[in-house]
């Protein structure tokens, strides 16, 4: 064991003390946040929208919910015969220490029919990337982990759009274990704008296919850390004059998340209003008719999920109810997180052992062609010291 326990243990104690102190502070802050949120819900929507408008292009928080704050958000009835599709992905990142340069994206999906004793259909797509143009951007820079994540996220939406349309006349619900916004686009440094645009187009086209199939679509985020609604709550507290003069101050409910707010506010099974999102990335989605909205859902097992939906779901009461009720039903047996996504993850995940097996196959294939596969010196020494299974 390489961790120095005498150094580490006091720090662990400090961590627990810090969390304990923070929790006490947050309880006080949370009461204030709840009070402010309730005050915001009593504001005329037009006034709230005016504040957002004054915040201008700098505003990146939640937008006022088009449905308002008055509509009851109790668990709706589940539509009969729902077909749920879930997709997830896994990957092996490029590693310059392996014998051959490659990376891998593994995508899986499952489609199940509620209350039918029929084995769900499963789908897997495994892609190995090894050509020079796949390993490097147009600029010549090697692709990094963020690029692989972007490909994975686009492929997940892609397989979902292929799987979910075959629902006949039965209502469909398509779920992703992810935000619907393609955040990886912001992190894929080195990729040219053309490449990014191409991936974004593929992604948006997939969303359009899901819409055309009549399916509802939602992205699920477990244990969300965002504070978009708290930011809107604070914005609602500010006088318009100060917004014009001083700009947007930092969030005063620092350290709190929307999750904590709605855990206190939402009864089990209920959802929050469906908010819009003023993210710069959402503008690209809006241009394609896929502006992303979100709500929080208190699942039956006492967890808060952030659920993201495209505008065409947010603006349709039947589709929004289908998402709400469908997620609750999916989470009934699993502690709150949708069963379809748990299984999609299980089907997609690439373990360390499988990764090593793939490296062995590649080494053998190279040797059969008379090539001498050689891992890097660093990689080889890790096998000697037993550090090849380390976290870094």
């Amino acid at each position, binding site marked *: 064991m390489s961790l120095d326990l005498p150094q580490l243990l006091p720090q662990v104690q400090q961590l627990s003390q810090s969390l304990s102190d923070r929790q006490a502070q947050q309880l006080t802050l949370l009461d204030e946040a709840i009070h402010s949120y309730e005050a915001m819900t009593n504001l005329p929507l037009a006034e709230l929208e005016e504040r957002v408008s004054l915040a201008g292009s700098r505003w990146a928080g939640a937008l006022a919910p088009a449905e308002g704050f008055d509509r009851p958000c109790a668990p709706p009835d589940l539509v009969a015969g729902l077909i749920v599709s879930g997709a997830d992905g896994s990957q092996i990142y490029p590693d310059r220490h392996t014998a051959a340069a490659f990376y891998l994206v593994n995508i899986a999906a*499952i489609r*199940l*029919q*509620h*209350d*039918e*004793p*029929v*084995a*769900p259909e*499963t789908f897997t797509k495994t892609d190995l990337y090894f050509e020079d143009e796949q390993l490097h951007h147009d600029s010549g820079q090697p692709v990094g982990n963020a690029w692989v994540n972007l490909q994975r996220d686009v492929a997940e939406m892609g397989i979902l759009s292929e799987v979910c349309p075959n629902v006949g006349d039965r209502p469909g619900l398509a779920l992703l274990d992810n935000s619907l916004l393609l955040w990886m686009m912001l992190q894929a440094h080195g990729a040219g704008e053309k490449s990014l645009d191409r991936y974004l187009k593929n992604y948006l086209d997939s969303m359009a296919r899901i819409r055309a199939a009549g399916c509802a679509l939602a992205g699920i985020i477990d244990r969300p850390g965002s504070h978009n609604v708290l930011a809107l709550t604070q914005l609602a507290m500010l006088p318009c004059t100060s917004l014009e003069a001083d700009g947007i101050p930092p969030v005063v409910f620092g350290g709190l998340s929307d999750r904590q707010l709605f855990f206190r506010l939402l009864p089990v099974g209920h959802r929050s209003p469906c908010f819009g999102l003023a993210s710069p990335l959402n503008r690209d989605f809006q241009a394609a008719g896929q502006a992303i909205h979100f709500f929080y859902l208190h699942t039956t097992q006492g967890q808060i999920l952030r659920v993201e939906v495209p505008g065409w779901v947010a603006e349709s009461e039947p589709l929004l109810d289908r998402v709400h009720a469908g997620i609750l*039903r999916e989470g*009934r*047996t*699993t502690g709150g997180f949708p*069963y379809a996504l*748990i*299984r999609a993850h*299980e089907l997609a995940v690439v373990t360390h052992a499988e990764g090593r097996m793939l490296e062995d196959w590649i080494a053998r294939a190279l040797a059969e062609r008379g090539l001498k596969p050689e891992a890097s010196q660093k990689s080889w020494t890790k096998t000697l010291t037993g550090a090849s299974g380390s976290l870094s």
Partner: protein
Amino acid sequence: MSDVSEPIGRVTRCSTQTFSGAVRTSSLGLPAFGACCQAEAEDGRVQVIGVIHDIRIEDDPFARQMATLDDLPAEQLADAQRNRQAPVEFSALTLGYLEAGHFFSGLPPQPPFTLAPVYLMEQEALLKFSRDLSFTRQILNAEGVPGNELLAAVLKHMAAAYPAGERERFLLQAGRTIARFLAGDLPRLETILHTLQPGLS
């Protein structure tokens, strides 16, 4: 009898005395306790013959959690039973082998290959292999298997391969063979013959 043209699984581990295989459940159903199977060895020159003595389905934390629920949705139950089930593992006790068209009782020169397909024995092969009942001693002496039940099960399985009029004769002959081997253990002999009894009626 089961469809023997499709493999029931593939060898995952093996030794001279036993071999195990894994199979995903399918329309063929699970292989049966006491069924005879074969897998190739020595570059296909030899078929190792075994009798299935154990069928195992391992659980996992997710399956255990689902099992505790009162009202498991129908689609999740179907998913667990048909998609998600970990490969069924079966273990076979080696009884003999087929080489150059002749059946032999006893241990083969080499075990089967890893990942060799495992097939249920065809009716014709069962009839030929069962003519020499010395494999019964191997089952009686094997460790780590339910010998009495296994012996009764394999004999019933073999008897079913015979034409209806010859089944009783086969079982009576098998009973006499077992009686010779267990002359010094009458309680065990009685137990086995009693288990065989329904096959004789």
